[in-house]
């Protein structure tokens, strides 16, 4: 269904583009992985939840299922399926009897949603009811619904195993919403204020929520993957334990072959550096500076030409975004410029030489040209705003020091530069704090007196000095921080300077890259030691190396969009993530899905650190 929609839009756009000779390199064709996109996985389920017949329907959702369908299905698609009304099952308004509509209740099998559904059933406002859960329902849930079905209107009770919010084709979130953790931003949706990072502060219902989401994904993929867990992480181990319990309790449901599928449960604390760095790829910058919320964002109200309704930025239905979301800032600005120029030339038909037929063609395609112009305006407005932010915060200077600290070892020089930046009024507090945290991870040990702690205390940032302890505690005071950073031996720094000069702002490599390479080439430590990633399911038989093909990496504590870009490049074999030698070591079919409980940016990460263990 959604594929079909995409084909149509792509077809029409490419038509209009080729007509106006827009270089197709803007939409460079990528090698599609054989596995289906997460968007398709969810929209296929929605297709099943909402039957395609001619009856008029109302769809009642809860606060979990609403974002699930919203990120993968459109209002127009729902309308086409005869859904004339979507509402919260817990609506506080009185709905009057509408006996000519059928009602589909699509909720998470949790107490408060089930109770709301019972309330609805007792009122029996619609001609019939279908109840679909986005996961496994308990007999108690079924019992209360059965008791509430006074008029016997329920005709279908089903479980659909799509319990995740899609971010990208290969990135998903399993969100545990706690109302207290949210604040409403002006014009935007709720944005989490903080988010639990420390294992001890993670409530059991969140652990359960994550395990249930992952278990549903197993069913959706018809796999029962091998499960590996980062032994050091209390958080990841709890999720693994809960997951094993779920699999055991409903063994029939999860009775699939594992084939070459692996779920690897990691902890964010394994790499606290990545979410501290200024990102420079399009999607990550959007989240960093504007905040993406279920693939939508709002520009501040004072931005010129900003659409007050906000923007959708999803690779599912924005071709320009899909082609540019992982490009760095420089390449992106170039492409936006080209895009604007092409659009201009598309709108300014060369009138002096245009023939009658060309004019007529132009007229017939005016609709597509309009949507091209709309898309250009959207990305031009957004990138213009981003460039203001970058300039205002002097992020190029800040980021340069960040990247230098990450990629080279020069304590005194870096400390001098840090102090200079700390003195500047125009550098924002949050950026100063990040630099200090990075310096501490890089050059200081938890046992010695911290120079940056003194620096932090002495300035406008004094409230933040305890963050250093929180960060060290989060990473683990007994751990060496060297593995977070690039190798800094004499030879490797020569190689870096003279061989891959590349882009100085994107020298950092997330730890996830190393971990994934080991996982894909079967060299990841299986031991039960704190450094190990032991199997929680029976390990695959030894002898030949086990090279996983369908990998789910789940990061307890949240992932960044820099990691999302990494996974994208791995799946598309682009970006030179792995060298040819490394690629030869892994299965050519290998494909990775990245999941997390939150999408981090530096602000959310630092605030969550501040809330402490």
């Amino acid at each position, binding site marked *: 269904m959604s594929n079909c929609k995409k084909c149509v839009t792509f077809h029409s756009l490419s038509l209009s583009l080729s007509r106006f000779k827009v270089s197709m390199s803007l939409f460079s064709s990528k090698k599609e992985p054989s596995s289906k996109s997460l968007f398709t996985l969810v929209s296929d389920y929605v297709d099943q939840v909402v039957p395609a017949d001619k009856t008029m329907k109302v769809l009642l959702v809860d606060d979990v299922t609403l974002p699930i369908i919203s990120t993968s299905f*459109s209002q127009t698609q*729902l*309308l086409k399926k005869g859904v004339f009304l979507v509402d919260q099952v817990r609506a506080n308004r009185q709905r*009057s009897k509408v006996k000519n509509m059928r009602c589909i209740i699509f909720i998470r099998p949790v107490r408060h949603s089930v109770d709301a559904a019972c309330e609805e059933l007792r009122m029996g406002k619609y001609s019939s009811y279908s109840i679909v859960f986005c996961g496994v329902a308990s007999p108690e849930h079924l019992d209360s619904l059965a008791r509430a079905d006074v008029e016997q209107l329920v005709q*279908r009770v089903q479980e659909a195993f799509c319990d995740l919010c899609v971010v990208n084709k290969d990135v998903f979130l399993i969100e545990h919403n706690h109302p207290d953790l949210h604040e409403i931003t002006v014009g935007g949706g709720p944005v989490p204020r903080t988010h639990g990072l420390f294992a001890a502060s993670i409530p059991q219902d969140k652990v359960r929520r994550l395990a249930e989401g992952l278990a549903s994904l197993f069913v959706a993929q*018809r796999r029962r993957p091998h499960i590996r867990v980062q032994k050091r992480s209390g958080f990841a181990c709890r999720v693994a334990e809960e997951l094993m319990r779920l699999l055991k309790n409903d063994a029939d449901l999860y009775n699939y072959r594992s084939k070459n599928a692996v779920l690897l449960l990691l902890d964010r604390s394994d790499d606290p550096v990545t979410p501290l760095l200024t990102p420079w790829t399009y999607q990550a910058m959007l989240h960093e500076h504007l905040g993406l919320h279920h693939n939508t964002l709002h520009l501040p109200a004072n931005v010129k030409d900003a659409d007050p309704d906000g923007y959708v930025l999803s690779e599912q*239905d924005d071709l320009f975004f899909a082609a540019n979301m992982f490009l760095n800032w420089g390449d992106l600005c170039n492409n936006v410029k080209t895009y604007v120029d092409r659009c201009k030339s598309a709108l300014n038909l060369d009138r002096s030489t245009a023939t009658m037929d060309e004019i007529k063609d132009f007229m017939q395609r005016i609709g597509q040209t309009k*949507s091209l112009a709309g898309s250009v305006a959207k990305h031009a407005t957004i990138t213009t705003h981003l460039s203001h932010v970058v300039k205002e915060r002097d992020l190029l200077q800040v980021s340069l020091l960040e990247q230098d600290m990450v990629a080279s070892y020069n304590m005194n020089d870096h400390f001098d530069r840090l102090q200079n930046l700390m003195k500047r009024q125009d550098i924002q507090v949050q950026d100063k704090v990040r630099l200090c945290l990075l310096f501490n991870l890089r050059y200081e040990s938890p046992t010695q007196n911290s120079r940056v702690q003194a620096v932090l205390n002495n300035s406008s940032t004094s409230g933040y000095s305890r963050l250093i302890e929180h960060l060290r505690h989060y990473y683990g005071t007994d751990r060496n921080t060297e593995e977070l950073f690039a190798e800094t031996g004499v030879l490797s720094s020569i190689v870096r300077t003279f061989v891959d000069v590349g882009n100085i702002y994107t020298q950092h490599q997330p730890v996830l890259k190393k971990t994934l390479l080991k996982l894909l080439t079967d060299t990841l430590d299986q031991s039960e030691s704190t450094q190990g990633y032991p199997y929680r399911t029976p390990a695959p038989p030894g002898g030949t190396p086990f090279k996983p093909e369908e990998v789910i990496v789940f990061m307890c504590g949240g992932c960044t969009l820099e990691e999302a870009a990494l996974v994208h490049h791995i799946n598309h074999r682009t970006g030179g993530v792995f060298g040819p030698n490394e690629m030869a070591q892994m299965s050519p079919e290998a494909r990775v899905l990245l999941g997390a409980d939150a999408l981090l940016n530096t602000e959310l990460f630092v605030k969550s650190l501040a809330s402490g263990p």
Partner: protein
Amino acid sequence: MDDDGPPEMRSRFDEFKVFRAKYRPPVKEEETAGGPHESPARQSPWIRAVNDFGELEDIIDRKIDLLAAKQQDFFRPRFLSDEEEAALQDEMETKAVEVQKLLSELDRMVQVSMVPQDRQNMEEIMTSVNARKLLSTRLQALIQRLKSNQEFYGNRLRRRERKQKAFGKVGGDGAYEQIKQEERVAKFMSMGYTDSDIQELLLEETRQDQVSEEIKTILDNVQKLNQMFQDLNLLVTEQGTMLDRIDYNLSQSSQYVSNGVEQLKKAEEHQSSCAVL
């Protein structure tokens, strides 16, 4: 992944029925099998309009198919007298006009009939607004079909006519005339005429081109379709925008409702304060 076929679902209905039987005796399946059993008299007119729309839509769809097949057939080489050919063309024209009339009927339904009966009922208002959006989208697709169909047919007719003319008189007259006219249009364009204006101008040009009556009518009708299409555009949401997001629409409608409640409260307050006075 061997993931062809529908996604994995699990029914819990049998279990549910067992639980339900515990609380009350099961009714027969046919009785529970709901559906629009409400007497039509109690239905809002717009709900009937939705159903009527569907029926008429099917009819028009078939008619367009038929018309396209006939037009296809028309260009097959064969030997017909001028009279026979003219009769055929007339027939197709009447058919097209007929379809067009039906489309205007649909347009009227969308623009006029989709009004909620109970203006206090937020749910009915929302539902009818959405229904109207859907019908607009569907109507636009239908119009688009007929439009491209007729344009294609018109162009083919014109090409054929030109060919016939070319046999008639050899010379640069026509070509010269055409270039001149193109220059004129280009001038209009640079003056910043809008889409529909230019369509008008194009028609004007074709008139001056002394194209035969048939083509003129066809293009004339296409022009009318264009207008209808443009009007509907206001009702149709574009894909990939916030307006097409399910969550955005839901929050908008709840905002709308809470505003309404707010208004009611104010009105009540106003009334009670009046009573005190």
